[in-house]
């Protein structure tokens, strides 16, 4: 008893007794494990990306090995003849996304300019919140609306261009409606990073609203605007449900803008449940192509947005 007491009474260099030393050691251990534990979860994100790439590559390999370059040059996708050409789907994906961006960008920029420069202060918040809420509506709702309302409407409006109401242009319009709130929200956020002093000095020089927007705001946030647009493009490229209903599922390459076609995501969604063997592998190869396309597009967008973020205070 007395010897134990004398040991614990020995002064530590911090003046801590044994109980405190034990606590110190335990907390130090928790500290180390807390950092290691959280770090391993963060590394999990990296592993996730690697695993996605690898698993898609492995499961797509049978098809890629069998068809090789034919996979990218064949102009039709006929599962029962085991002819798998990715071109109709790639063409449809690019065309629908470009139509969507071409419609959505002017409209979203217009809304963003209106919101940041012209909108009465009382309306600004409710309108902004509405746009953000609309960006949260699931894409399947847009698809259902496309097949119920937009398709029949286009068919009635221009029966020569839209004989069935479905097709690449219909899908592009649906995608545009879907990404308008998305691009608008980003554009508005980016435009509001311009310091109000800059804006006001331009107004003070006698610029009109348009001149301020064009010569002061746009040049100083160009990267952010482009990043936002590309992010919208990335969403349109990978969108499945808004497109699957209205694109028409024509599996032959047909150089048209309004006719029926297919996109990578729509083709995978419609054929995968019944696919087997080499067809399933081919569909996974399509998935890999889509992932690579969107990865490049998103990486460019993030790089541009990152530059803006770094500059913002």
């Amino acid at each position, binding site marked *: 008893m007395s010897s134990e007491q004398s040991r614990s009474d020995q002064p530590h260099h911090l003046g801590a007794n044994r109980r405190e030393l034990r606590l110190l050691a335990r*907390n130090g251990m*928790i*500290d180390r494990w*807390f*950092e290691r534990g*959280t*770090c391993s*979860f*963060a590394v*999990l*994100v*990296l592993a*996730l*990306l690697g695993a*996605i790439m690898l*698993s*898609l590559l492995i499961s797509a390999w049978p098809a890629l090995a069998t068809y090789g370059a034919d996979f990218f040059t064949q102009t039709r996708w006929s599962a029962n003849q085991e002819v798998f050409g990715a071109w109709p789907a790639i063409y449809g994906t690019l065309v629908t996304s470009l139509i969507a961006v071409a419609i959505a960008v*002017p*409209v979203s920029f*217009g*809304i963003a*300019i*209106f919101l940041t420069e*012209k909108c009465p202060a009382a309306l600004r918040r409710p309108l902004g919140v509405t746009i953000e*809420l*609309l960006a*949260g*509506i*699931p*894409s*399947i*709702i847009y*698809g*259902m*609306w496309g097949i*119920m309302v937009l398709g029949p409407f286009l068919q009635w409006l221009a029966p020569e261009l839209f004989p069935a109401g479905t097709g690449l242009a219909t899908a592009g319009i649906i995608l545009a*409606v879907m990404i*308008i*709130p998305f691009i608008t929200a980003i554009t508005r956020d980016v435009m509001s990073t311009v310091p109000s002093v800059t804006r006001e000095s331009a107004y003070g020089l006698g610029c*009109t*609203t*348009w*001149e301020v927007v064009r010569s002061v705001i746009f040049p100083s946030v160009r990267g952010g605007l482009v990043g936002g647009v590309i992010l919208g493009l990335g969403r349109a*490229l*990978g*969108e*499945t*449900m808004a497109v*699957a209903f209205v694109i028409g599922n024509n599996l032959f390459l047909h150089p048209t803008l309004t006719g029926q076609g297919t996109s990578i*995501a729509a083709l*995978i*969604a419609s054929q995968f*449940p019944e696919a087997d063997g080499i067809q399933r592998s081919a569909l996974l190869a399509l*998935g890999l192509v*889509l*992932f690579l396309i*969107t*990865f490049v597009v*998103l990486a460019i967008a*993030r790089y541009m947005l990152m530059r803006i973020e770094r500059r913002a205070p």
Partner: protein
Amino acid sequence: MRNENSVYRRRRLINRSIMTLCVSAAVFGIVWLLLILFTLVWQGTTALSLEVFTERTRMSGGGLGNAIIGSLIMTVGGTVVGTIVGIAAGTWLAEYGGRSRLATVIRFINDVLLSAPSIIIGLFIYAVVVLPMGRFSGWAGIAALAVIIIPVVIRSTEDMLKLVPNTLREAASALGAHRWWVVVRVCYSGARAGIITGVLLGCARISGETAPLIFTSLNSNQWNFFNLGSEMPNLPMTLYQNMTINSFIPRQVELAWAGALILTAAILILNIIARIVSRESNKR
């Protein structure tokens, strides 16, 4: 005194016409979106009834009860898994990662995953979970939804932790608190509202995901409460099937619209709660 020379008039004209275009763009965009909401509410309310919630899905008649329960189970499961992983990873990025190269790379990859197409996530889970298990299952659905929500939670956790002032951390450390104690008790309580907002927004996002479920949980027309090893009924897949392969049955299309209304209402409510949470914390 107004200067009425031609340059001034031209500038004013250009400005007026472009601002008119902007206003009409705003009206145009908002009219489209309101049109969609109007169709949704109109079609949805006419099909809504008590049986929609209590009956299971059938080829003729029936309701959406099992799909709603299945969606709830999978969304909650995915959110729980995603929240744990996301908060841990976000904590490391904000508190320990700093400007190191590893943290920069993870941040970049996370941003890319944040907007990766959800159909790809579905294919990934199909390849690593469904193929080895040999069947579609609720577990695979939960895994896919978790992978989708993780980047959302990471992003918001990191952003919110970075808003906690460094002086608070230093004050706690000066009082002798260990690093983990500072993070858990000081930083988390400062960033709590923001993190909850992020989780709620992520939850709203995954509850409407359809594409990944085609390859993971598939769908079923039976009641399935906690048998996660087998196919799981869910609302988005039911909407998809009712509008495509079953679209020749008018009752199924009606049910799809009722389901769409329920789904959108749930998502909007989640979004609004998230907004209220973040606004309350801003007030404080």
